[in-house]
């Protein structure tokens, strides 16, 4: 094959060799896909508008919002009682309850009570399992 295929890799920059190649391949594939699917890509605005129009906005964005609040509160709450996993336990109970109510369709007292019981029992069980039995750290 001669000298054409000869390459040397400088160790100092060897961390960039593979990422560069992959980036080139991705760009190339991306260009081909854009050319081939140009009509569909042009119509993607309408597609997303349709997705947003059809979606159950309360449940979808509610899930995202609840999840983000849940994640954000866990550490600050946990820092009040360090190394007890209380942050996880105290945040999970309202999270499980609220998202359960959010997902529920017919919000009658009986179903909400069931969710309430699950929301207290399951995080407590998991918390006990992980901290007391498995000795794993929870926030």
């Amino acid at each position, binding site marked *: 094959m001669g000298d054409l295929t000869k390459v040397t890799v400088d160790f100092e920059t060897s961390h960039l060799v593979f990422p560069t190649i992959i980036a080139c391949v991705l760009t190339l594939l991306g260009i081909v896909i854009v050319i081939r699917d140009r009509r569909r890509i042009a119509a993607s605005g309408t597609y997303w508008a349709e997705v947003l129009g059809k979606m159950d906005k309360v449940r979808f964005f509610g899930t995202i919002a609840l999840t983000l609040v849940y*994640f954000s509160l866990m550490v600050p709450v946990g820092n009040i009682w360090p190394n007890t996993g209380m942050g996880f336990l105290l945040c999970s109970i309202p999270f499980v309850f609220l998202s359960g*109510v959010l997902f529920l369709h017919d919000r009658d007292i009986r179903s909400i009570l069931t969710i309430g019981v699950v929301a207290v029992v399951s995080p407590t069980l*998991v918390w006990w399992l992980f901290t007391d039995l498995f000795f794993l750290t929870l926030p």
Partner: protein
Amino acid sequence: MEFLAFITPLFLSLVVAGTLVGIVFGAIPGMTATMAVAVCLPLTYPLGLENGLALLLGLYVGGISGGLVPAILLNIPGTPSSITTTFDGYPMTQRGEGERALKIGIVSSLVGGLVSLGILFLFAPVLADFAIRFSYVEKFLIILFALSVMGALSNNMLIGVFSGFLGIFISLIGTYDISDGGNGKHRLIPPGLEYWLESGFSLLPVLIALFGLTAILYEAEIGIPRGLSRDQVKIGDSSRFSFSVFRGQIVNLIRSSGIGTFVGILPGVGGSAASILSYTSAKTFSKHPERFGKGEPAGIIASESGNNGLTGGALVPLLSLGIPGDSTTALLIGAFTLQGIQVGPLFIGNNPDTWNAMIFAMMIANVAMFVMMFFAIRYVALIVTVPKHILFPVILMMCVIGAYTINYGIMFDVWTLAIFGLFGWIALHMRIEIAPFIIGFILGPSAEVYFVKSIESFGDLSVFVTKSWIAVVLWVLIIGSIAMSALISRMARDSRESLAAGASDPV
């Protein structure tokens, strides 16, 4: 019997419990075997490798099998791999033969699972023995081969390949690790995130996000479909099951199990391809192809033995080459990594106990699945009525536990969960394929080391062709796979279209 020392009451109960939970996940539409494994992974941390695998393999087998219940009773596939079960299962239910259809499916699942387990047991050690001789050059080509196969067999070849490379790209974020022979420098890290992304995104939070959070976000988008009431589940009283239905179906059973196993061996190809291909071939070879789609037991037999054939097949490349056969086995890689064990050609030889334990666990899981589902099918059928508004919040909580405890308490892993959960939802709508993405993400770092080290030591690109005859064979396989699998995917697409047309046919 020292080699059976791993069989303890705990081991057995974990397999059985895993299978039961797996059946529940499989039977509820919108929840999959992969999700079951993702959610239960954190439970395996303190269990040790054999016991942890016992639980996960039970979940895998149960999850794939449970999908037949809603497929047959409600015309809704519980997992993607039971799509073709609906074609003949639901018409049978409409005729009042629900129980008979379910039992045909359960027996076929058992046969599919056991045949593929046999192939796994015989084939994986042989392949591993062969792969031990591979140098970095061949290992790189094997990964390239895996990528080419999974790209070509995804719904859309270009986008499949793109998804795979995107996975590789994202896996390279972080440090070029010194322990792999790298220079320890950072790359691809967005400014300001060096502290968090020094070792890149952790594998398990990414997997848990893509198979737990993404699925729940998708369900939330469509408004968390209501659970079904008990009145809607009609299992039928008049149907009597007898094993005579399998007379003349032995060939179909074996062929479908074989197809399922083979599809499982191909990396990145999901269960739906396995059942679609077995269903199509059963229809092609049948003396009465016109009966398919109208409640023909042979259709259920093909579909269910095909998708359970996956379970053993997908473990072949995982245990012999370190390449996961599907997304569920990709999660199993995580379980191995947690216990500090590298899967690859040396795995079986170095860990004979674990290997025996896995085979044994799969066997027990298949038998447990059969016993639980066959004799308690009337109760199992009620699983489809379990309300999601109770399950999903608990699953989300388990995802958080899984992500947080994976590296012993790193909050960034929980944020990784959020980032990739959202990414997965967007990817779903952009038709980026998750299975190739995941396999690219898992194999990316090894591909880099094999590639860069090969060039560093040979200084010549032609080494990828001239290194050995194995390299040449691998190139032939890569090129052949692109050609062949393009053909297969076209066939699968055509038959899927004709099946869809046939299924919607009112006649």
